[in-house]
């Protein structure tokens, strides 16, 4: 797996914990949704907690754990399945400020959409990372320009820019 943050491939500090593995005493771990409640109850305070959430997760299912979570990784079963974008928006709306990760076969061409919906990082399989090198992610990040829509994470909305231009 390769991890992209701010247009660069970075080292992943997080570790996915299999359900049968014991909870660690330190570090950063990602647990399954099924194990979330248990992890919140038993994980030591110093250990950072993340969860792997299918794109069909109801945001309410994460609500109780939200203050304890430092990372939510939303699964994209296929790059053309856009449910994860809506889920990301709902999770941000619920007040989550930690790292929001998209995990799946996402394309650099979707970086803009992901950033706009509030994702911070993208995790893709290695074979895909080989075809989509860093330069492509950087180019897409640079192309993350103004949007017509408001309320999305973007360098700015066209409507605001228009308003400013009109006020001059």
């Amino acid at each position, binding site marked *: 797996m390769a991890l992209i943050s701010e247009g660069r491939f970075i080292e992943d500090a997080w570790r996915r914990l299999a359900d049968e593995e014991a909870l660690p005493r330190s570090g950063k771990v990602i647990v399954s949704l099924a194990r979330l409640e248990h992890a919140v109850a038993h994980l030591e305070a110093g250990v950072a907690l993340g969860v792997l959430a299918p794109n069909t997760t109801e945001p309410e299912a994460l609500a109780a754990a939200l203050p304890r979570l430092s990372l939510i990784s939303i699964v994209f079963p296929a*790059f*053309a*399945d*856009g*449910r994860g*974008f*809506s*889920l990301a*928006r709902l999770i941000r*709306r619920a007040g989550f400020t930690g790292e929001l990760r998209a995990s799946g076969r996402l*394309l650099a*061409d*979707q970086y*803009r*959409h992901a*950033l*706009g*919906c509030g994702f911070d990082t993208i995790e893709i399989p290695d074979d895909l990372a080989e*075809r*989509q*090198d860093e330069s*492509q992610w950087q*180019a897409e990040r640079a*192309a993350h*320009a*103004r*949007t*017509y*829509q*408001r*309320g*999305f994470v*973007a360098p700015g909305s*066209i*409507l605001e*820019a*228009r*308003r400013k*231009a*009109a006020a001059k």
Partner: protein
Amino acid sequence: MTAHDPSLARPNTPVTTYRYDEFDAAFVRERVAEFREQVRRRLEGSLTEDEFRPFRLMNGLYLQLHAYMLRVAIPYGTLTARQMRRLADIADKYDRGYGHFTTRQNLQYNWPKLIDTPDILEALAEVEMHAIQTSGNCIRNVTADHFSGVAPDEIEDPRATAEFLRQWSSAHPEFSFLPRKFKIAVTGSEHDRAAIMVHDVGLRIMTNAAGDVGYQVVVGGGLGRTPFVGKVLRDYLPRADLLAYLEAVMRVYNRFGRRDNKYKARIKILVHEKGIEEVRAAIEAEFVAMDRGVFSYDPTEFERIAAFFTPPPYEALPAESAKLRAERVAHPAFGNFVEVNAAPHRVPGYAIVTVSLKPIGGIPGDATSQQMRVLAEASERFGFGELRISHEQNVILPHVKQDDLFDLWKLLDGAGLATANAGLVSDIISCPGLDYCALATARSIPIAQAISKRFSDLSRQRRIGKLGIKISGCINACGHHHVGAIGILGLEKKGQESYQITLGGDPTFSASIGEILGPGVTAEQVPDVIEHIVDFYLAERQEGETFIETWRRIGHARFKDVLRREGEDGADI
């Protein structure tokens, strides 16, 4: 730049179309640059065909039977003379000298090369055009009434809303990877010319008791394999809530629309399976929960857009032109053209002219580059440089002085564009079918041509009156056959083309899906069957009744019966 910047004004320059500001221009250019890069990466191999596909579709590029096909957006059907000329130039330079106007207010080129498409998109961008979201699982090019701004029965010009939505839906971060395509249509009149009842979302502009302008929202209409007439989601939505409400609709659809089967992925299936109450409850709940401040409607922005769609500088004229009256009498062919192809205008002394792209025996919706240039010229000389594309695959000149109709007719006639059949039986809507489309199961263009030839006598067509025939080459229903008064669907049965006929479809507010007449017939039989149906209607109709009214009054069974009697033992009809 404002809508009425005097530096832009020259005689007959369109003043009633949206003009890009620097942000719109930059946005479209960024999309072109992005697509150029995607084409490069596809050719170089860093994108596979599967990965490239949604992105090329979002830019209007299909891979068809013989070649690529590029679908250019004509937002809400409005086009300037300059844009029309550019479409002609592109047809000459990158295609085979013609284009095909479609039922979704788009223009399709059938023969572009992949490598050329970024250049074509750039040529379009130069004249404020694009192919963004004319395909793919995103919010498609928003369509609107082609008589916008000139219809006598209009409450408000729907193009302001359509442009507002065009911008909101363009490259939407959250809704570019939907379960399936999503089509929105807007109408602002008492008569629906935008078929809003058969769209994923139909918006009907209306006023409430307090006189405020808002929308009736219809959801879940659509044709294709499972045709549905849409259901009312909201009787009245204040304009201030438009974008927020649509965000709620889209979010519910994006999260809960089926993705397991592409035929069941449209919102109409969600509405059908869950029921309108459950869908409405989910949408309303989302609407309440969302941070509406963030999506809040900006009235200044709406008004800025609406200001572009103000009326052109009409002259003060008498309601009826004496010149026109005399010319109609002196030139009967012209008189017929006016009777059939000119519609009443909201301004005295003007007319709305439908230029038929359905010459007898021609290919519905096709226009040569030469014809496009004549249309551009016609609009400049006789219509403030503005044109419209209708979902009936015709071109509309929305502001023609009655005094000018005769000269216009002569100009059109010289280019083979004066067929006086708007709304008549030979004004056939037809998809490309097996001649171009990779999904087709049968031909549709040759069927349209055969019917058109069978009814070539225009005076007979006028006697028959308004009658919509719509043909699709497969169940996807691009030719809208389900909502044709007479619909024809091409299928394949045991290696043979077979045509299923439906009657009683209606795309307007009184929408209905056509009912099947009987077993399919062969291509050769289609014109006969249509003729029998038409003859039966003529025999049965009461004074002033349209086909659909007669059909509704006497019932489908009577039509079925007569055909059974006409065919010897009924087996072949």
